[in-house]
């Protein structure tokens, strides 16, 4: 079957063979393939680019719900996946800002959000993968069982690879049960110092929050903490967390975690500063001094600064703070794993994409 009509420069494959043909053609003609929905490296494009839109390749291949795994084609939108899983009381506990994103792009981008503190990231859920590399080779890794160490773990290699190594065509996930209930509480503090003290106490709390987010701006600081479970369990945890935090104000909402997580889009608009969790309040104060408010994930040490004054750019402030604290900065439009200059990275790129079909070389670089 041939591809459906698509705007010029787009390809909507509905089979793996069509993906293979597109990639081989790009390799032969020295053109490039961009996986739609995956933000590419911000490097000048020297080639004509075909955008690979996987929306027509979106079947559920296998959903043995009692095994708590699902195998889907890469174009299935994340919102549709969530709907299917909800019918069985299950979930893939990964927060995705764009519900219309295809699951292959979600993996390539290593989407995550507030619940990463409690649930981890996609590397903890992708147990099997099928992909097509830059030579047009269809390959698989992992399988459909939740525990499996046969062969190299290419699932993790491709998760977060931003489409630089291969086009993901099919994925198997391990799943989690959906919680019965949830609470999201906002704890307000006078400043970042008080927030820091609360975070120290929370490190040994008996509660088991799935979200431990923060926001720091001039004159105020907040913790947003989410818990899940049976109602009695949620209520007990909020009581415990209230005692631990010693905040000036507490406001709790029932079952609003999903809405909060799906609206958390800072990852796409702000640079991300990664530091140790113990450095979050310090980093937030340093960013404030540089004219940036910040929000982020206190439990995993990620801050998203945004500018409040005319002084400086958030990315510049982020880089300064990260350098001082020994952390790092990732911006979607600046940083890309394929731009890492380590010999191993470059060798992997040459292995998977020797013709630079996915990896757009910087201007002047040899293709």
């Amino acid at each position, binding site marked *: 079957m041939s591809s459906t009509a698509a705007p010029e420069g787009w390809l909507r494959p509905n089979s793996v063979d069509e993906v293979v043909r597109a990639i081989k053609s790009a390799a032969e003609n020295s053109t490039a393939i961009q996986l739609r929905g995956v933000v590419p490296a911000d490097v000048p494009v020297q080639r004509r680019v075909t955008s690979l839109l996987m929306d027509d390749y979106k079947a559920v291949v296998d959903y043995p719900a009692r095994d*708590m795994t699902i195998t889907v084609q890469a174009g299935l939108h994340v919102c549709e996946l969530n709907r299917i899983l909800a019918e069985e009381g299950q979930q893939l506990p990964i927060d995705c800002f764009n519900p219309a994103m295809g699951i292959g792009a979600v993996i390539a981008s290593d989407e995550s959000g507030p619940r990463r503190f409690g649930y981890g990231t996609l590397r903890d859920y992708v147990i099997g993968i099928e992909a097509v590399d830059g030579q047009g080779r269809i390959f698989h890794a992992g399988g459909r069982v939740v525990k499996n160490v046969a062969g190299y773990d290419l699932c993790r290699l491709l998760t977060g690879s931003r489409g630089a190594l291969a086009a993901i065509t099919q994925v198997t996930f391990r799943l989690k049960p959906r919680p019965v209930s949830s609470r999201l509480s906002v704890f307000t503090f006078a400043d970042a110092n008080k927030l820091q003290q609360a975070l120290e106490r929370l490190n040994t709390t008996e509660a088991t929050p799935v979200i431990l987010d923060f926001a720091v701006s001039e004159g105020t600081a907040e913790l947003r903490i989410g818990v899940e479970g049976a109602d009695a369990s949620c209520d007990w945890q909020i009581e415990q967390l209230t005692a631990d935090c010693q905040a000036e104000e507490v406001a709790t909402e029932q079952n609003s975690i999903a809405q909060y997580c799906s609206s958390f889009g800072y990852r796409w608009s702000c640079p991300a500063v990664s530091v140790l969790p113990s450095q979050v309040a310090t980093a937030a104060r340093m960013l404030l001094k540089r004219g940036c408010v910040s929000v982020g994930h206190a439990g995993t040490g990620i801050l998203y600064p945004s500018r409040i004054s005319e002084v400086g750019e958030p990315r510049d402030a982020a880089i300064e703070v990260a350098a001082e604290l020994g952390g790092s900065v990732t911006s979607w439009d600046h*940083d890309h794993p394929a731009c890492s200059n380590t010999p191993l990275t470059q060798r992997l790129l040459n292995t998977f994409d020797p013709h630079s079909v996915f990896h757009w070389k910087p201007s002047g670089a040899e293709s």
Partner: protein
Amino acid sequence: MSTTEPCVVTPEFLRELAQIVGTERLLDSKDELLVYECDGYVVEKSVPDVVVFVESAAEVSAVVKACVKYSVPFVPRGAGTSLAGGCLPVGGGVMISLTRMRQIVEINLRDRFAIVEPGVVNLNLSRALAGSGFHYAPDPSSQGACTIGGNVATNSGGPHTLKYGVTVNHVIGVEFVNTEGDIVRLGGPCGRQNDFDMTGLFVGSEGTFGVVTKVWVRITRNPAAYRTMLAIFDSVDDCSQAISNIIGAGIVPAALEMMDKGIVGALEEAFQFGFPLDAEAVLLIEVDGLEVAVDDEAQTITQLCTDTGAREVRLSQTDDERALLWKCRKQAFGAIGRLSPSYCTQDGVVPRTQLPQILKFIAEVSERHDIAVVNVFHAGDGNLHPILLFDERNAEQVQRVMKASDEILEKCIELGGSVTGEHGIGVEKISFMNRLFTETDLEVMEDVRKTFNPSGICSPGKLLPTAGACGMEHIERSHPGRKAAM
């Protein structure tokens, strides 16, 4: 390395190694080397030409550079507890023993990570964390002996990985010596930084990418409460159905371990726990979490077990009783000596709903080949450990064991599973790789291996059927036809 080129360990090379580690940390006499001819997989053996006991990353680097200079293959080894021949020195060469690199470099409770050297025994990290409110979650049954470097190599699991995940879920960074002798770091306390998830790729690479010299691991907050139960069944079918029902109900216990009548008898003889000797199977179930939640979860599981035919569900009443239960489970393999002079453990995995089918099949295989099989395994993950009992002095019996093992693993594949959940491929299961993966899959994996280990000098003959193997023909094979590579 060429696959046919013989490995030559010259006096000059040995002198150079001795200059690096000293003669007291180098073994090259035939008698002493015999200890290192195999790991926990005793079926295939190969003696290294020399063993060096390194004490630092710098020494590892120097040893690897010497190996490169003299074209001698090398293989890293931790405690040698692996069960698939992962640290078998295929074709001889240098064995780099990491057991003397056993420092816990740092424990950071606030940021929930620790930095350890590869020779740190798994249990010693949890012991170092005792009383802190944190622990290291991966807990393989061999945790009293196995090293964290070895756990990284094989991506080890354990009973509690059902809820907490396997080693790779807890490793955030690795320092290793590559096949050129350079010290390379992947990840770290802040995780991956603008690069591919090389740490995730490295974990489980079975020593074929280089020699681990430092590991950054996550440490996990202790749960506030536990409930540990023993469900007793009069039929294996009912027990496996109960497992399927618990998982199918969306409950993820901290651990869900099954033991059949054969292993329970051996454990009772060894530990006098009070296991019911007439039961066909028992389930060891643990739930953990908030005190306010665990009772409800335990009650739901109890009801599911009872509904599926459990004649009794006992709740562990004290911490000591719980500790003894886990001691029994983790030392189950040690008790097998009471049943048979030799045994062979398999590591297949099936989708959890297929447990009733695979257990029936294992029973059929046992009967058909007249080989006794006992089962003790991670039921919640669908990760089987059928233990085939035999006497290795009986060559004909050994052949039947090998045939029975192969049939069990083939059935695991047929049911949608895998041949290894936590032991690794090593040399033992290489012949299954082309049944699990396509030719192209293996070609891509081989390309990945070459990005780390282009000459094949590090751990040759492992994991991939295409892996270069220097002198494979010299492996002493008790069982012709199970060639690992070539």
